[in-house]
């Protein structure tokens, strides 16, 4: 079944803030996954905005704060990939919050009260490396992942294969095949009930309960 991302949850136009919960992410895959999680948990009144990359968040966040209606935002969540250094991603988020004069959480996932309350999530974790692929991999069917692993071992030395390649190969083997995690999230091809997503769900619940 194809499920479109609704304007309320994932549309990337932002003429004014209409929702009380705002999640900022760095790419379309993160956006699609978080929108899917919000739906899976039946959370309400969220807007997930794609910040189009990890660069320039200081200016981008300040610009987001200047969009009409920001005063309606009760809770703000920043979601960033750890990439090669989760601590650096965390520091980058805090730097953007300082520049925007917003409340500063002291730990990932912790909601710092304020107007708005603010939380930061680092994917897959502050002390980890990687991105959304590392978060999703544990939720994939292990027998199918073993096939992917065999496939790469057959082709080359599997130790040099990126998580993105493993994820895309896995998704290509699904029926219907999914090109990437954006499509997979939209097509309910990810097991969102898996515990791998619990930290992110907790983060969203924290925002929802603010």
């Amino acid at each position, binding site marked *: 079944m194809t499920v479109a991302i609704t304007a309320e949850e994932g549309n*990337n*136009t*932002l*003429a004014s803030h209409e929702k009380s919960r705002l999640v900022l992410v760095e790419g379309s895959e993160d956006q699609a996954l978080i929108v899917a999680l919000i739906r899976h948990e039946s959370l309400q009144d969220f807007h997930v905005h794609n*910040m*189009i990359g990890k660069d*320039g*968040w*200081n*200016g*981008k*966040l*300040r*610009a*987001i704060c*200047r*969009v*009409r*209606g*920001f*005063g*309606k935002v009760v809770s703000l969540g920043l979601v960033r990939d750890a990439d090669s250094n989760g601590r650096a991603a965390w520091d980058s988020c805090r730097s953007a919050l300082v520049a925007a004069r917003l409340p500063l959480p002291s730990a990932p996932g912790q909601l710092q009260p304020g107007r708005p309350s603010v939380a930061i999530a680092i994917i897959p974790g502050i002390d980890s490396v990687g991105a959304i692929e590392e978060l999703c991999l544990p939720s994939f069917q292990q027998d199918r992942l073993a096939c992917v692993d065999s496939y790469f071992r057959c082709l080359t030395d599997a130790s040099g294969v990126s998580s993105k390649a493993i994820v895309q190969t896995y998704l290509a083997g699904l029926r219907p095949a999914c090109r990437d995690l954006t499509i997979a999230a939209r097509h309910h091809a990810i097991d969102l009930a898996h515990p791998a997503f619990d930290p992110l769900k907790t983060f969203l619940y924290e925002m929802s309960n603010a």
Partner: protein
Amino acid sequence: MYENLQVDNFRGLRHLELPVLAPVTILTGRNNVGKTSVLEALFLHSCGPRAAQALLTILRPYRLPGSMNVEFSRQSTPWEMAFFDRNPSEPIHISGQVDGRRVDVGLSAPRDRLSGSLTPDLHSTASSSTGTLTTVPSYSYSMRITIDTESGESAEPEHREFVQTVSAQLGQAVLGPSGIQQIGGVSLELKPGDNSDALVFSYFLGPQSRSLQAELAQRYTSIRLNGKEKLFLRAMRAIEPDIKTIEILASGTPALYVTLRGGPPLPMSAMGEGMIAVANFAAAILEQQGGLVLIDEIENGIHYTALEKVWREIGHAVGEAGAQVVASTHSHECVRAAYTAFRDNPEALQLLQLRSGDDSPAAIAVHYDSETLKGALDLGLDLR
């Protein structure tokens, strides 16, 4: 240079604060939010003692182009269009930080200053200029201007007051772009005239006021005398690279002529709208050191591909002349072009987006520094 501005009771602005004004400031916002009013407020402030005159001779014709009727009655004054809700009993107050000192300019037009005996239908018909002329007494209306300047490092605080009075002998009189005009041989007179210096040398340029060729030639003369003609030529080449020379020719009224690719001199008035616009921008910026240039709808007539070059040249001219430009626009392309043009000099550019407040109808100015502006542009947020 203006560093900030606060406006009260002026046109549609009950209260508005502009927190930051840079060497180049872009004003954006939806229709009727007050962009032109902000430019006008800056202009009035800069005119200082001449504010009442500026209201009647420059700003009123700009809002209502061509000749116009100036009404006098106990219900209507020639100034009232400047007051919030057209109510002159609430004084206009414009306060700005100029070169480190706060200068407050107040304009009030108390109704009790109205003098003369008015007939009930004095201003009702244009034909009144013929039959009833001898029976209509003279009358006048005054604007009181106060200027309070706070103390500076080596200057005491200062309070000055001026009264400008407009008087006429008709129910209707005509004002044109060049000043006070008349109907039926009876003049409308404004006193005092140009005796007092403006606070800051300023220009107000709107789309309709960019074709005054004689004024352009006059400004270019000053530019030549100040040795800045190369800067003017450089600015003009941003929009027309083939310009070889610029000169003033006086076949009748002196006018600016350009030579393209070695051809005959052509009057500037024969050039495209964009060239004339840029000529006016450059002339206003370069004419006086440290001037204030206010441009309404700056993108008007300029092709989007030329906007970045025009902004770059504006930035260069502003730097050379120590001038300040505040310009309004409705164009996203214009804003993006400005950001790109000032990328190497980000401190020189700020954007203020005017809008009604989230929780109240009062206007607010949302400030975007260069980094925030880049963020908004990268995210595709609407700044207009």
